[in-house]
């Protein structure tokens, strides 16, 4: 009886606490709110039409182009950009490089939200979205499909990242015993998460192995899975640099002076890692270029488009990172991170949308509704991220 009373009182306390925390704080009329709120509202209306009248009512997708920007940008690109979570947790918890400990929480939060929103956006793109549970519940497992692996990995990795982030939630809710228990699970979750990440980052590339006749030969190779995995490493690192730069300005009140001092060293370390992985990736590309005699395809629009991606948005940012690390120039690192992110977005969109059925005269172009829903997903994620960061002990000061 006594125990029941204690549990009830604790539960009431947590509910009251969460209710208080849900109330909005700060100014409402900010430029970000003014832009994002109308887009989110319009996106919700579009989604209503999408689920009532079907996917064809709001998109330009058809039997020839089943994958649009909802998959190409949200899922395939978004998951690559979330790769920073597994890279940083590996560096901190497995390699024990404590320098990066202060960015673990925010990176894991970014990864968790990216998977929830971007992988969750897969639901929007399915003609019959209620079938999304089939690979999980066994109604139709589909063992032979790469999607079976990808769907299970998405689910397990989201749970894993939720476990990795859960000590922060317990700390926020002042549940000390739960925090200790959840913290003890972290290392196991990290190792499991790294394994899952390596497999599904490459698994997303493996999805396109069966589309050989449809993808331009400059982007298709049997090594797409390897390329997707390697590129997810520097995509994740660049995303951390980019996101960290913005967070550092927007949430500077939440950061202590110690973190400002550490910030430079962390950026330099991330840039160094990005430069090395980009260099490796570039040579993989060069090897494929020679092995598949791609010089025969390098003329014309598609050739120049390919060179823009590989030289302009991989090799040049790689050199920029290296130069910036050598000269401790943070401004160049930030510019290089933006170029790298553009390169990753372009690469994933080339494989999924732009160079897909490249020989068609009647190409797919996303409808305005698809663009608005994509922006809605991104803005909603930023809203949730902002809410969590301003309330929970995510940034270093409160740890």
């Amino acid at each position, binding site marked *: 009886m006594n125990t029941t009373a204690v549990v009830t009182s604790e539960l009431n306390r947590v509910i009251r606490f969460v209710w208080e925390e849900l109330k909005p704080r700060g100014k409402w009329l900010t430029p970000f709110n003014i832009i994002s709120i109308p887009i989110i509202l319009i996106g919700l209306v579009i989604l209503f039409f999408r689920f009532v009248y079907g996917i064809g009512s709001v998109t330009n997708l058809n039997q020839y182009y089943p994958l649009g920007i909802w998959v190409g940008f949200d899922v395939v690109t978004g998951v690559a950009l979330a790769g920073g979570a597994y890279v940083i947790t590996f560096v901190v918890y497995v390699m024990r490089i404590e320098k990066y400990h202060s960015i673990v929480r925010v990176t894991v939060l970014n990864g968790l939200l990216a998977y929830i929103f971007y992988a969750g956006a897969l639901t929007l793109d399915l003609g019959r979205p209620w079938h999304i549970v089939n690979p999980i519940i066994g109604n139709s497992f589909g063992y032979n499909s790469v999607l079976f692996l990808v769907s299970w990995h998405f689910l397990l990795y989201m749970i894993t990242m939720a476990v990795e982030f859960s000590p922060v939630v317990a700390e926020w809710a002042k549940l000390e015993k739960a925090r200790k228990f959840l913290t003890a699970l972290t290392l196991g979750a990290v190792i499991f998460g790294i394994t899952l990440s390596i497999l599904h980052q490459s698994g997303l590339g493996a999805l396109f192995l069966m589309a050989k006749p449809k993808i331009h030969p400059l982007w298709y190779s049997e090594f797409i899975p390897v390329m997707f995995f390697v590129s997810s490493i520097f995509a994740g690192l660049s995303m951390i640099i980019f996101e960290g730069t913005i967070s550092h300005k927007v949430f500077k009140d939440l950061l202590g002076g110690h973190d400002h001092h550490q910030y430079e060293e962390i950026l330099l370390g991330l840039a160094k890692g990005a430069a090395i992985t980009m260099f490796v990736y570039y040579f993989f590309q060069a090897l494929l270029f020679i092995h598949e005699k791609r010089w025969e395809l390098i003329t014309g629009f598609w050739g120049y488009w390919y060179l823009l991606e590989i030289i302009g948005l991989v090799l040049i940012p790689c050199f920029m990172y290296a130069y910036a690390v050598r000269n*401790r120039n943070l401004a160049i690192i930030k510019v290089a991170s933006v170029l790298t992110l553009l390169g990753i977005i372009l690469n994933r969109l080339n494989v999924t949308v732009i160079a897909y059925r490249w020989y068609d005269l009647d190409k797919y172009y996303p409808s305005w509704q698809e663009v608005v829903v994509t922006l809605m997903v991104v803005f909603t994620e930023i809203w949730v991220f902002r809410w969590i960061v301003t309330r929970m002990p995510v940034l270093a000061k409160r740890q």
Partner: protein
Amino acid sequence: MEFYTYVNIFETKGLEYLLLLSFLVLFILLVRYLSDPGRKNAAPAEKRSTTADQGRWSSVEAVKRKPG
């Protein structure tokens, strides 16, 4: 579009070996380049030794000799 293409793996083997060797050399150079301290952060260069200093190259400054 034909679905199957047969690649002669020996046709480009020589170039691939050259590429691999150049990668190994360049990778080492890149890591060395990145591992060196940055110019701005580097410690100030030590005072260049003068001719007079060179004459005392064998002196051991750390050793305090007992007077007398």
